[in-house]
C-alpha cells in the first residue's frame, strides 16, 4: 500500500494545462509547482476561473480531451504525466481519490450509494466478492458517521441531505484507503453549519488515517481551518505560497490581501460551532430524516 520510493507524497513541477482555442493556445494552468508530504494538507485558493479545479483534474490526468497536460506530476515518486491510461486508471480512485463540489450531481441518481462505493472498491481490488465489497461500503459509511449504515447503504443519493451526500462522497473516496485525497470545493454547496461538520470530518480522517489532503477552495477561511500550507492561484498561475500563519499575517501579493479582506470572520464562527459539537460525533445534520429528498 505504501510503496514509498521518495519522501514526498505529491511533487508537481511546471504543470501546465493548455487548451487549443480558435484564437490560439490558452493556458488554464501555467508552470505550477506543488509539494505535499505524506499526511500533509495543502490548500489551493483562488477565485473561480483561477485554474484551481483544472489543477486537481490534471493531477489525476482527468483534464478535458481538448486540453494538453505538460510538466511533471509525481505521486510517491511515480511520474503520472505520460503514464498509460490503464496505469493511470489504477492510480485514480486507489492511490488518489477525489471529492467534488456538488455531491448531488456527482453521485449517479440511478444507483444506490452502496453500489457506487462498491464499484470504486472493486475496481481496484480484483477478485473481491460482492459481499466483501458491501462490508467495505458499510464500514466506509460508518467511518464518515452515517448512522444506520447497513440500511442506508441501500438508499439512493436523493434520499440523503446535502451534507450527508458529501459524507457519502468522502466515504467512497476513502473506501480504497488512498494516500492522497483531493477535495475540490467540498463545502461550497453546503450550509454554513454543515460546512463546519464536513471540514471537521476531513480533519478527523486525516488524523486517523494519515491521508494526505489537497483542499481546493475559494474560501480562505476554509483552508485556514485544516491545511498547513497555502498556494494562492490567479489566472492559472501561483501568485503566492507559504505556511497558513504567514499568509494570514503577512500576505505579500495584493491579490492575496484582497482575498483576505473578502473573508468574513467566519473562522470565529466555526470555532464556536466546534466548541458546541466536540469531536463532531453528533451533528444535527445526521438526525435529519432522509426520506424523499428533492428529486
Amino acid at each position, binding site marked *: 500500500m505504501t510503496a514509498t520510493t521518495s519522501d514526498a507524497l505529491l511533487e508537481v513541477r511546471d504543470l501546465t494545462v493548455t487548451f487549443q482555442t480558435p484564437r490560439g493556445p490558452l493556458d488554464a494552468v501555467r508552470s505550477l509547482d506543488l509539494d505535499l508530504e505524506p499526511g500533509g494538507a495543502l490548500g489551493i485558493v483562488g477565485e473561480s476561473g483561477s485554474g484551481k479545479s483544472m489543477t486537481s483534474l490534471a493531477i*489525476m490526468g*482527468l483534464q478535458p480531451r481538448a486540453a494538453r497536460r505538460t510538466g511533471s506530476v509525481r505521486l510517491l515518486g511515480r511520474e503520472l504525466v505520460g503514464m498509460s491510461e490503464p496505469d493511470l*486508471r*489504477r*492510480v*485514480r*480512485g*486507489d492511490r488518489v*481519490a*477525489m471529492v*467534488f463540489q*456538488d455531491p448531488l*450531481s*456527482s*453521485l*449517479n*441518481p*440511478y*444507483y*444506490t450509494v452502496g453500489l457506487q462505493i462498491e*464499484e*470504486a472498491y472493486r*475496481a*481496484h481490488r480484483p477478485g473481491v466478492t460482492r459481499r466483501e465489497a458491501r462490508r467495505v461500503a458499510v464500514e466506509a459509511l460508518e467511518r464518515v458517521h452515517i448512522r444506520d449504515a447497513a440500511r442506508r447503504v441501500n438508499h*439512493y443519493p*436523493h*434520499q440523503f441531505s446535502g451534507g450527508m451526500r458529501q459524507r457519502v*462522497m468522502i466515504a*467512497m473516496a476513502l473506501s480504497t484507503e488512498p494516500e492522497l485525497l483531493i477535495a475540490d470545493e467540498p463545502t461550497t454547496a453546503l450550509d454554513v453549519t454543515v460546512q463546519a461538520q464536513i471540514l471537521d470530518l476531513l480533519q478527523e480522517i486525516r488524523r486517523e488515517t494519515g491521508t494526505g489532503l489537497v483542499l481546493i477552495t475559494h474560501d480562505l477561511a476554509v483552508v485556514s481551518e485544516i491545511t498547513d500550507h497555502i498556494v494562492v492561484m490567479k489566472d492559472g498561475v501561483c501568485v503566492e505560497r507559504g505556511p497558513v500563519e504567514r499568509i494570514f499575517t503577512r500576505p505579500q501579493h495584493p491579490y492575496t490581501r484582497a482575498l483576505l479582506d473578502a473573508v468574513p470572520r467566519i473562522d470565529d464562527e466555526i470555532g464556536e460551532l466546534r466548541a458546541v459539537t466536540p469531536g463532531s460525533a453528533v451533528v444535527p445534520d445526521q438526525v435529519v430524516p432522509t*426520506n*424523499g429528498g428533492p*428529486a
Partner: protein
Amino acid sequence: MPRFLLSRVTSGLGVLLLVCLFTYLVFFALSPDPAVQICGKNCTPELIDQIRGNLGLDQPFWTQFVQFVVGIFAGRTYGEGVSAVDCAAPCLGYSFQSSQAVWDMIVQRLPVSATVAVGAAVLWLLAGLAGGLLSAVKEGTFADRFITGLTLTSMSIPNYVLALVLQYVLVVKLQWLPFPQAVPFADDPVQWFLNFVMPWMVLAIGYAAAYTRLTRANVLDVLRENYVRTAFAKGLPPSLVWRRHALRPALTPVVTIFGMDFAGLLGGALITETVFGINGVGKMAADSIARNDQPVIMGVTLLAGFLVVVGNIVVDVVYTTIDPRVRVNA
C-alpha cells in the same frame, strides 16, 4: 405505488371519456344522417323515420351518448324485432355498411397492425440507438455529420413517397422482393416475411431518425454530467463507465417516448398499411373514410385514444422502476 397507479388510471379514464365525448360530438354534429345511408335507394321519408326511431337517432344528444358509452361496457342491441342487430360487450358501434360490429372488425385486423408495428419498432430501436450512440461517440467527426445529415433527410421523406420509391426500386426494377400479396404465415413463412420487409422499413425510418437524434443528444448531455466525471475519477474502466453511468440515464427518456410511439402505432399505421395494401386497422380506417363509414372511423379513433392512454400509464409505471427518484417520490 398503488395509489399512484390508481390516480394515473383515473385520469386516463377521464381523458378517454373526453376523447369519447369529443369524437361523438363531432360525429353527431357533422356526420350525414346514418339513417339515410342504411335506408338505401328505395327510401321513403317514413322509412327513414322508422329507422331513426329504431336506432334511437331521434333521441337527444346526451341520451345517445350515454347509450353509446354504456354499450362499450355492456353491449347493446341496435333496432328492434327482426331487423335488430346485436353488438356484444365492447361495443364501439355497428357498421351497417359491412353488417358487422366495429369491435369485431378491429379485432380481426389488430394482429396484422401489431405485426407491422412490432417489426418496425425493432428496426427503429436498433437503428436509432446504434446511430445515436455512434454519432455521440464520434461527436464532431465526419461520421457524426454524416449521420446527422442522414437523419435530417430521413425525417423529411414522407413515408408514402418512400414506399413508392422502395416498391419501384426493390420490386419492379431490381426484383429483389416479390410483389406484395397477402399470405398467411402458416402457408409460406418466407413470403409472409418478405411482404412485411418494406412496410417495416418505411414505417421505421422516420422514427429511427428521431431516435438517433434523441439518443445522441441525451448521451452527450449525460457525458457532461458530474457523476460521469466521478466514475472516471474512481478509476472505473471506460466500458463500465459507459455501460453503467452513461447509457442508463441517457436511454431512460427514450423508453418513455418509445412507449408512446409504439402505442400510437398499434392502432394502425394508416398510410403505410394503405400504400402497401396491408389489411390492418389503419387500412380499414382509410377505407372507411373513403366509404364514409362513420361508426368504423369513430371506433378506430377511440381505439387509438385508448392505446395512447394505456401507453401513457404503462410508460409511467415502467419509469418508476427504472428511475429511483420517481419511485420514492410517487
